[in-house]
């Protein structure tokens, strides 16, 4: 095991997969000689050449469309959206082309495509460099969506996504690139898509979260532990498919559920989890299903405004305390 950053883990995953399988290639804006806006693809261009690390024009729709076409004829493209916010420029190709190809061909084709998208706020990015658009894509059948929080999961999930035969949207939180450091195995390993992980065990409350929110959640759980309340923290890792069994198992144990995500409140992933738990685990609940989320607004640029909106440890602790005392 070695300690590397989240960004290095993502880079390593691409490097190893491109070495392992020559049908894997990267395309996107500035991914080539520049190494990517966040340096995620640094070194790949020198190693694999410009055909496999392709600098594209500013044309997200074309990037995704080209990736789909290449996937149809035997390639495994990794299309990079420079910021997740720009994914809306390629929205039609993702939700109407990639997501439906297998379905409308009656199951005859597969689209082994990965779209990497740096998401997340708290970086003074303003409206167009801070978004968390995962819910739009979790909503669309035919797509897989993942959002790792740790370097270990980032590497393993990216490898799994590249090897998966379906279109996978890989949301990497830009705030974690250099801030999250953690142990990563040297072995060739994958983290399966569709499986959550219990990052901290507890019997009193269930906390379900994903991506960068994992860290304030763990800190909040630590605080609650000192107050004698043990929180079961579940890192979803994958949003579509979502590990429902892990959620239900924990809810059966604790009977109290809090969901935390950085995405907006209305119709975020938390809403779906709350609905399904109320539907299928009603008899196990000893309190309302609660959520701590970003409010229904945009990402303002001015720091105190964004601070006001972002979920953080204090807000999570507050919610955990209210839930514990219900």
């Amino acid at each position: 095991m070695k300690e590397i950053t989240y960004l290095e883990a993502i880079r390593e995953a691409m490097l190893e997969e491109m070495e392992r399988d020559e049908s894997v290639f990267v395309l996107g804006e500035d991914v080539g000689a520049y190494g990517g806006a966040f340096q995620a693809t640094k070194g790949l261009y020198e190693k694999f050449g410009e055909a496999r690390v392709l600098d594209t024009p500013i044309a997200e729709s074309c990037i995704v469309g080209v990736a789909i076409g290449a996937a149809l004829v035997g390639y495994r493209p990794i299309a990079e959206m420079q910021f997740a916010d720009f994914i809306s420029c390629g929205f039609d190709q993702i939700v109407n082309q990639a997501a439906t190809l297998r379905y409308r061909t009656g199951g005859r084709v597969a689209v082994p495509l990965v779209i990497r998208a740096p998401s997340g706020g708290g970086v003074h990015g303003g409206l167009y460099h801070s978004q968390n658009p995962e819910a739009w894509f979790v909503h669309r059948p035919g797509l897989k969506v993942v959002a790792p929080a740790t370097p270990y999961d980032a590497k393993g999930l990216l490898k799994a996504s590249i090897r998966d035969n379906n279109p996978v949207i890989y949301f990497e939180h830009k705030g974690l690139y250099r801030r999250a450091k953690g142990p990563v195995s040297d072995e060739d390993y994958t983290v399966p898509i569709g499986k959550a992980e219990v990052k901290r065990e507890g019997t009193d409350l269930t906390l379900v979260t994903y991506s960068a929110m994992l860290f304030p959640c763990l800190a909040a759980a630590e605080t609650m532990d000192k107050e004698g309340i043990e929180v079961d923290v579940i890192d979803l890792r994958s949003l579509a498919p979502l590990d429902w069994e892990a959620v239900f198992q924990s809810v059966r144990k604790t009977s109290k559920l809090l969901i935390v995500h950085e995405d907006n409140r209305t119709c975020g992933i938390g809403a779906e989890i709350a609905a399904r738990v109320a539907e299928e685990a009603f008899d196990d609940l000893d309190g309302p299903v609660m959520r701590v989320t970003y409010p229904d607004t945009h990402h303002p640029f001015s720091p105190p405004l964004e601070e006001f909106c972002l979920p953080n440890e204090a807000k999570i602790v507050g919610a955990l305390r209210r839930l514990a005392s219900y």
Partner: protein
Amino acid sequence: MEVKIVVPHMGESIVEGTILKWLKRPGDRVERDESVVEIGSDKIDVEVPAPARGTLKEILAQEGATVAVGKAVALLETEDAAPARPKTEAPPEPEAAEEGEAKEAKQEETTPRGRRRITPVVAKLAERHGVDLDQIEGTGLGGRVTKKDVLPYLEGRRSTQEAPEPKRKEEALPTPTPRRAAVPSEEEPVEVIPVTAMRKAIAEHLVRSKQTAPHVTTVAEVDMTRLVNFREKHKADFERQEGISLTYMPFIVMACIRTLKEFPFLNGSMEEERILLKRYYHIGVAVALEEGLVVPVIRHADRLDIRGLAHAIHDLAERARTKKLTSDDLKGGTFSITNPGAFGAVLSTPIINYPQAAILGVEAIRKTPVVRDDQIAIRHMMYLCLSYDHRIVDGATAVQFNQRVRRILENPLELIL
């Protein structure tokens, strides 16, 4: 005025910068916008310009040091006087309690009288284990009984049930441990009997009865001599005419019905917030079978005379023994009578046939020396052991009931009325 020179924002994901080169030394004069230091990150290197004209006062981080974005690396003494600064407040600590605060206020109001907030999991546990939530103290909001309150209560209940009744102080209460099957050996052989569905049903029924109704048993002593003599005189004829033997049971049933009409609470049952007094009389008469006790019911027993009762009792007992009872035979009883006396018992504390209010145990009739008119006489004596649900029936009523049954049995002519 002292001004800080800080590590600038160098990109969305950059959190720190490294001091590459100081372009000025402490004591140097600097113009506004003149580059003071070079700071690098793995994305870009920047030259940081002085925010104002002045003298470089102090370097806080040396070349090679890594400093977080926004933190100061040097201090600049400017020539400007401190301008009237608008009061900048530190961003307020994000309130811990904010989301759903209005909701919380609502919850903390006292719940409306008589309404209990029961969550799904608590309701499930209560039903499954027959828990009366009123018995449990709630630690949740507004005194709500939570799952965490119910679970220890169930644990505690399990452990008290293992203690024998009445509690004997010498014996320590058995600690609730998971029952481990005894490992049979030659010294301690064990025969394992599987529990039949019937036994299981009986067991559950009895447990439920005992857990729901606080049982008290009151005993009356009946002088059955007159009835014994009466029966002696008529039993042969009766048997010839009716084809069945004449037992004491029909008389006892009739006496009970007569008395139930006077003491209706013993023919009642208890629901959540009300007591139902049955104005009909379906009397259950217990029959002991090998598999266990069954209590088939004589429906509208008040409409039958002695002969009718005798036949009904006989019929039910026959059908019970030949396994021809239907579920209707066992349902709907309002009062039950059991006869441990048939096997020789003198005293018993029968368990009420839930959800009835009482059960009468009829004990053995024995010739017993008693005092009559200050002299010893030998009389046929029998105990009547009435177990009653103390929620529905109070002590005085129960005793009076029992005494009334006694008086009717001691003066059987009253049965004619």
